[in-house]
């Protein structure tokens, strides 16, 4: 199995995960569900980064970048969950159709 075919396999897998995440973001009505769909997309991107760093340019730059992505995702999740808890306390729901505090 050549490197190019292998790369295509990983790119296809990452693409499937990414589109599943997109579908989840558009259909989910629960804020935590949307958050998890976004994280699926992050992981698809990470998978592509590592596949590229292994199969196209064999140095550790891609792995390093994926490491930074994981760090930023951790920060994002912490803030998002804090906001979710705060919103739940004031609105008593997590349905995005009902949370319209910022809607004019």
């Amino acid at each position, binding site marked *: 199995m050549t490197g190019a075919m292998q790369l295509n396999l990983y790119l296809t897998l990452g693409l499937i995960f990414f589109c*599943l995440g997109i579908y989840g973001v558009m259909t989910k009505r629960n804020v935590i569900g949307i958050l*998890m769909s976004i*994280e699926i997309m992050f992981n698809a991107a*990470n998978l592509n980064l590592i596949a590229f760093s292994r199969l196209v*340019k064999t140095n550790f730059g891609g792995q390093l970048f994926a490491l930074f992505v994981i760090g930023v995702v951790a920060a994002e999740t912490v803030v998002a969950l804090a906001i979710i*808890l705060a919103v739940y306390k004031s609105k008593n729901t*997590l349905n995005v159709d009902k949370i319209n505090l910022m809607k004019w």
Partner: protein
Amino acid sequence: MGTAELVVFFILATVGIFSALVVVTGKNMFHNVLFFGLFLLTIAGQFLLLSADFLAMVQIFGYIGGIVVLILFAVMLTRKITDAEVEVSAGKGILSFVIALLLLGSIFYVYKRTLFPAAAELPKGFSTAAIGKMLLSSHVLPFEVVAIVLLVAVVGALAIVREEIKE
């Protein structure tokens, strides 16, 4: 990539796609979070197949041990487990499916036409030592910036939740 690795890849891919599908379409939030953990585990397996051993460990410790547990806490704090997920209207679901499918098709078409330069030889050995050296020499600035971002996120999260309690 030998036959054994290919078999492992397809097993991991199947389990990963199935669990991602459950996360996206499932109705029970608690089960969704558990399947999200399974999905992350299969991604860690793919990292191991790509000989990114350090990233696989970070994925398991940091992601599954940290973020999934955090989301699980949030789910249990904010809703009753027996609560059903709000139903999606059929028209919206079909529209979203079509959009996602169009995106999948167009991106697939684009990278099928692209020629990527394949690597000549694949380096062997563990990546942890090399990543550690890069983090503390050539990439020390982004490393410190991520540290500050994490600190700010923690302080910000505390500030957001604390304000709510005071009222």
